[in-house]
């Protein structure tokens, strides 16, 4: 039961931090708005508006960037001090890092689901219509992966600053090859081929297939890629997290 108490407590700690709250609620909508507005002239031909494109890609981007919220929940200076006392309580080391991961994941699930619903039904962004639940699940898997990456880098590097500095590198590589800010195909066939190494590419492609073609052919694969990535990160946490180094 201590695990649930700690998850609840960590969740409340995130909610108390206005910056984390803004980054995970208002900021995605602002980013969709800005990117959609800036590029709207490039999306006049087809049925996909710039807001539709960036609605999906910016949500995937935000879900990946939840990694930064995870590092904050785990090792941000003001909470790390208090968190370090949990090490002395009758709580296992797995419960310690998993509670940080799970509390961040719960925030992402609630927040991003609301944003998707608002986007679809208030701002008329195409998040799949009747298939929106599948897009929600997909974004959910990405945020689980993001939380796992953030927690993993905290366990490896033992500090929020270190984790945040390093975390941006893989995420930006994933984002670039995932075509979140512009389609990678425009950079030539070689880059497009390389882009399939990025799990984000599969997730993005899967999302657009579901939304516009009602095509679920790579849906399961995309979900498995996200889940396997998360499991690998959690296994690395289990190996590298040493409570004595947290104190």
């Amino acid at each position, binding site marked *: 039961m201590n695990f649930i108490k700690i998850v609840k407590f960590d969740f409340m700690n995130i909610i108390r931090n206005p910056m984390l709250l803004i980054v995970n609620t208002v900021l995605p909508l602002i980013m969709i708005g800005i990117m959609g507005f800036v590029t709207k002239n490039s999306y006049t031909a087809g049925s996909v508006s710039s807001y539709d494109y960036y609605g999906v890609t910016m949500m995937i981007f935000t879900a990946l960037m939840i990694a930064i919220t995870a590092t904050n929940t785990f090792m941000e200076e*003001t909470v790390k*001090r*208090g968190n370090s*006392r949990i*090490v002395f309580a009758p709580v*296992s080391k797995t419960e310690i890092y998993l509670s940080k991961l799970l509390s961040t994941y719960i925030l992402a699930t609630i927040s991003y689901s609301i944003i998707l619903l608002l986007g679809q039904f208030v701002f008329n962004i195409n998040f799949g219509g009747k298939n929106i639940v599948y897009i929600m699940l997909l974004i959910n898997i990405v945020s689980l992966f993001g939380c796992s990456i953030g927690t993993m880098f905290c366990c490896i590097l033992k500090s929020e600053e270190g984790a945040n500095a390093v975390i941006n590198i893989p995420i930006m590589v994933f984002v670039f090859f995932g075509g979140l800010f512009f389609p990678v195909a425009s950079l030539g066939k070689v880059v497009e081929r390389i882009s399939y190494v990025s799990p984000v590419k599969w997730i993005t492609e899967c999302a657009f297939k579901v939304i516009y073609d009602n095509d679920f052919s790579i849906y399961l694969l995309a979900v498995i890629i996200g889940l396997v990535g998360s499991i690998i990160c959690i296994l690395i946490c289990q190996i590298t997290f040493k*409570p004595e180094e947290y104190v």
Partner: protein
Amino acid sequence: MNNIVIVKNLEKSYDTKKAVDGINFVVNKGEILGLLGPNGAGKSTIINILATILTPDNGEITILGHDLKKEGKIVKLGIGIVPQDLAIYEEITAEQNVSFFASLYKLKGKQLKDHVKEALELVGLYDKKDDKPKTFSGGMKRRLNIACAIAHSPQLIIMDEPTVGIDPQSRNHILESIKILKNRGATVIYSTHYMEEVEEISDRIIIMDEGKIIAEGTKEELKQKVNDEVTYSFHLNNIKKLNKEQFSGIEGVTKVNITENEASITMEKSKDNLNEIISSIIEKGCKIENMNSIETSLETVFLELTGKKLRD
């Protein structure tokens, strides 16, 4: 169960350095055991091992009748740790801090509320229970750090340098609180490098250096170890006329130290030749302005046993 903690042949190394080198000790029920030693003596390593967050390389530890290796989780329920660094949340109230940590020890409802109140009262922070620690002074934060560790009424309380960097008033408050905890039946392991704190509160003292226990006993027993000597200190005029060699002929003199304006001379108690020393000083044309005999303190004991000062 008279022995709350039993440690046998404990060893812990970091790379090639032995932080704890085959030590044995017990902590008796209801006592305050002072763990004294300079930085790097191995005190924090022992505390982290007893707190179950560090695994020893060798040795057996029994705490509250449970084998630490096999029943670590049960042991954790019965101990309270006051870590050296502040382990509190700055952005929630003092009461929320204590309540959250106490709730991890199976306390809930009215019982939890009562324990939280009791802990905050003990450290003198109950009237500040609704304030956030970020508004507290360093001493108040230290006291809250203690409240968070004791709210679940642990049988064994382990304190790692709980008074570092605080004002004398808060320090006194903390030391008084520890005495109250002892009177309520708690057993305390108190690690510090402040000699005067150990002298004030400890029933028994373990002196450590370089991972080993170099002396153990009550403060009287420890002082007895070096009490076969007496040291006299002289404040003198014309001290430059004095030299160490002039005392070498006096029977029983074991150590002479001459500084800019003070000479301290140590001799065997059984051969107290104070008259001869004074004569020797006066013969050299020095005028004695002041003289006293230095009491044996734990600092002296430590210096004698390790050859270095505690804060080296």
